[in-house]
């Protein structure tokens, strides 16, 4: 079972680091991101974030999917933002490790091998 939700993300103005809207304030951990089930709530938070111009650069909403109790961004790009470069596991939020980071990694591995390997076809 999976449900589609939304989260609010931005880059920290001063550091450039990826941040997510948490229940209170902003966090660098995707696992602590507030998940919005109502698009209107999400939109209202985005409008508020747009006012935080001294703290944030470029806030926007992302789709999130919850599978087996773990949330992860739907798009591959946003999973990389939440983790750090896939080629440098020593950099970015992924360095914290732990089950939630592993779950994010697994979800992106799943998307890369979704049973679509037979797609090379002769024309």
């Amino acid at each position, binding site marked *: 079972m999976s449900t589609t939700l939304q989260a609010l993300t931005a*880059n920290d*103005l*001063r*550091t*450039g*680091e*990826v941040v997510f809207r948490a229940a209170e304030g902003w966090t660098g951990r995707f696992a602590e991101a507030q998940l919005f089930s109502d698009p209107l709530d999400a939109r209202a938070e985005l409008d508020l974030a747009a006012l935080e*111009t*001294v703290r944030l*650069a*470029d806030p926007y909403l992302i789709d999130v999917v919850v599978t087996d109790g773990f949330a992860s961004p*739907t*798009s*591959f*790009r946003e999973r*990389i*933002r939440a983790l*750090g*470069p*896939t*080629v*440098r596991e020593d*950099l*970015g939020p992924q360095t914290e490790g732990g089950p939630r980071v592993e779950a994010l990694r697994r979800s992106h591995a799943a*998307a*890369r*091998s*979704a049973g*679509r*390997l*037979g*797609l*090379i*076809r*002769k*024309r």
Partner: protein
Amino acid sequence: MFIYDAIDAAMLKDRNAEFRDQVARRLSGDLTEAQFKPLRLMNGLYLQLHSYMLRVAIPYGSLNPNQLRALAQVARRWDRGYGHFTTRQNLQFHWTRLSDAPDILDHLATVGLHAIQTSGNCIRNTTSDPFAGAAADEADDARVWCEAIRQWSSFHPEFTYLPRKFKIAVTASATDRAAVRAHDIGLVLHRNAEGRLGFEVIVGGGLGRTPFIGKTIREHLPAEHLLSYLTAILRIYNLEGRRDNLYKARIKILVESLGAAAFAEKVEAEWAAMDRARIDLPDEELARIRASFGLIAYKKDPGARAAFEADKAQDRSFARFVRNNVAAHKHPDYAIVSVSLKAVGETPGDASADQMDVVAHLGETYGHGDIRVTHAQNLVLPHVPLRDVRAVYEKLSESGLATPNIDLASDIIACPGLDYCALANARAIPISQDIARRFSDPDRAEAVGELKIKISGCINACGHHHLGHIGILGVDKKGEEFFQFTLGGSGAEDAAVGQALGPAVPADKVADTVERLADAYLHLRAPGERFLDTVRRLGVGPFKAAAYADADPA
């Protein structure tokens, strides 16, 4: 090396003070992001996936040891201990804090480095032949003319808000190591039948979503008229280039729509009408620039060649390094040594701060203080005495910088891709790593020979995929990374845009596909043919059959 004079130093100081003030005003909220973004971009600071990215200009890819050390210091002190050399011969720091950027730029200014001309719709940092000044076959030192272009184009008031960015590349050799035909303007310096120095002027090359190989609009422009002729071209482009559509704003679209001949006529008319003497470089300034690069007092070393050959005979690994990474210098007792930033399993173009320090030390100790960056994301020590090549090789080896793979299958160009870049659709780095591992056996890599593989993570083509003997373009298909192949491209003197091979393949099939293409080449090649030659002789047909041999029938 050209050393910036007091005018340049004052210009950098002013510019950095201005940017420091702009950053402070942004951080205090006096500037909005919309107001600030164009200002930070004009100072080379982009916002990417994980952080800000600072792109440092390396004019015509030329560095002295102190400059490379300063880059290492920035990597250590303000970034994450490494930098990424790009296909534009620049260096990118991928973890810059906005609040640190003014200090970083001040630090770089102490060695004459900056981020000017690395962003915006201006004339960008001019790129050139990394062997300039050392190549046996060059008509002149291309750096002299690149430096003239740098001085003329920096903050040029007429050309700061062009329809789109504008890239110029210069070579002075028949062998094109600067991909000049894929630039907005490509310049090939040569001597005509009378022995006069002049430029073949090529206009309208470019990659991205509509790739073009540039067209020659003048076979031989007398060298002394370079700046006025460039002005005429830029003026026509500035007036007639499209500003209504981002994707049709480059000069290549203008040249294509007018036709090269009609475009050339407009340029010639503009050039004929202008006061050239006001624009062209005075002879004394040209002489000053030329002198400031300094003449290297090459030393004859009659025994060096024999010792070098003896070393090669004794050590197969050294011999392999020489075969692949060492090129002939114009002086018989010197060599041009390429430093590979393509160790198998590493990120193409990445260098750690420690590696930068090692290369700076080698450049200082053995290389007349001269270090170059190549558009293929490697480094070059252009003036190494033949007697010292062995010592340089050994020190490079200790630091993982002596992979003997220049222009072989594992010497892959890859843009940062979706691991870093906000524009990318797919990753390029892990794909390059997968492929490099397949060719990690140096005997196999040498058996396949010259094979330039270039990977871009999106259609903007920073990885020059159109110019790859094998070009690979990442695309997003419903959230998954897929890769399209092109064959037969080249960025060299035989420049061409590659032809599409067939349907895109998923990420985990890319390296298999490359291996199949390489195997097909080994089977099909005629004696002496490179991969590129075989593709051009036979077309993509047999390669397509090999690549998709096991594909599911449709």
